[in-house]
């Protein structure tokens, strides 16, 4: 029993320093991009441009922040692509996503280091990030591209933005309110034994089997 208590509060490394640096670089640049982008997206939100130094300043810096975000996303993909790979059991998870949303565990396969929802979010953000980068270039250097390319870029940039913001709403909600402990995990890099066992049992088991914890 005593051992159990100790075990339960033991901390497990979930994210390395590098993973956290990359994550927060992406998070900060994304936040800046989202707020400055929204300022230019809607005149009713143009006031947000003033927070960041006015319309011209925002127009100048937004693409550079986009470069930072793209680099962070590439680094993130390099370190996580393997854990984010979708396997057949993830299909099962996604089919039963409603049980996850309603906090029932029926039909949900045990999650590895990331559950299928996290994986989907990762790919949604990566894919929309790629589209945002590709469509952002003609918006940054309009004189280098044809009219049709620029028009298409505007459309793609907006649609990819909406997809990414949709994803980020879910991500921020899950990471802060919905799953206590996950914000701390991304901040300190550690979770408790019980947290790991509850949310990512397969990952936890693997670490135990490998004798890493």
């Amino acid at each position, binding site marked *: 029993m005593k051992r159990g208590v100790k075990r339960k509060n033991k901390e497990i490394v979930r994210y390395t320093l590098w993973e956290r640096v990359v994550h927060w670089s992406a998070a900060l640049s994304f936040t800046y991009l989202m707020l400055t982008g929204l300022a230019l997206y809607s005149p009713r939100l143009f006031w947000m441009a003033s927070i960041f130094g006015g319309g011209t300043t925002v127009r100048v810096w937004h693409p550079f922040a986009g470069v930072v975000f793209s680099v962070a996303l590439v680094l993130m993909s390099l370190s996580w692509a393997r854990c984010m790979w979708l396997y057949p059991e993830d299909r099962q998870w996604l089919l039963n996503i409603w049980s996850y*949303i309603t906090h029932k565990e029926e039909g949900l396969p045990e999650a590895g280091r990331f559950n299928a929802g996290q994986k989907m979010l990762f790919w949604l953000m990566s894919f929309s990030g790629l589209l945002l980068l590709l469509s952002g270039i003609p918006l940054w250097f309009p004189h280098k591209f044809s009219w049709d390319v620029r028009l298409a870029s505007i459309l793609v940039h907006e649609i990819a933005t*909406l997809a990414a913001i949709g994803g980020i709403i879910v991500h921020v909600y899950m990471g802060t309110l919905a799953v206590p402990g996950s914000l701390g995990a991304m901040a300190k890099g550690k979770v408790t034994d019980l947290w790991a066992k509850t949310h990512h049992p397969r990952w936890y088991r693997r670490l135990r089997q490998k004798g890493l914890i």
Partner: protein
Amino acid sequence: MGTRVLETKAISATPYPLLGIREVPEVLEVCKLIDVSICIGCKACEVACQEWNDLPVSETYTHFGSYQTLPDLAHNFWNLIKFKELENKGKLLWTMAKYQCMHCEDPGCLRACPAPGAIVQYTNGIVDFVQENCIGCQFCVTGCPFNVPKISPKTQKVYKCTLCADRVESGLEPACIKACPTDCLHFGLKKDLVRMGLRRVKQLRDQGFENAILYDPPGVLGAHVIYVLPFGNRPEDYGLPRDPEVPATVNWWKGPLKLAGNIMMMGGVALALLHYLKFGPMELVEEKRRGAPGEKRRKTKE
């Protein structure tokens, strides 16, 4: 170019009501008429434009095989006669047509602009750029179906023909009109000039130019610069786009997509908060049997 006493009709990126409360007795829409059939390509309008607007005299490009001053309009060159050497029925057809901002009734630049007050449309039809509010994003360049606005590499702001709003405001005609020696350029009220243009078109048709038209593109709800084109079936020969209109993309982007986006973003946040109120945070489950080996080994709970 700065605040004017002119009454405004539309301001870029401004969903709120305009400030005008004065009763304007009659909206007098101004217009430029360019009768291409009697343009001699003297470029007096180009010079007058540069002079009045204090724009520098740029070096003439000579290496692109045309009589034209520059290949295209520039941030400091707002009025350009386009010259084209073409063939018509085996004979040389040398076209020359003054090109500048069309001052569209439905300006694509103004629709696309995200900076409040950077583009203004006055009730008299003039569409003007207010550089102090311009952020240099060049969405207007993409929104314009005539490819008119040009960015200055020095100031990173966009410039174009103002239809000499400063002169018009003082009751003068635009500088280019003043300079034209052949009366190919006219300035006045739109309704008068449309009538004048149609009369000239009829005259041209009677003279054998059976395709002559008055070019006043309906795709932008008409313009405040209209042309008499002898070969109206081939507007491209005068450097004018065929059937120009505000790009559908711009209308989608500023219309339904934005509405859908707003609903999605606000709905997303609302749903997340609602989910929290209904289901609360995910709890750590100790007693639940999840089959983890660590769990099984410790059957007893404290």
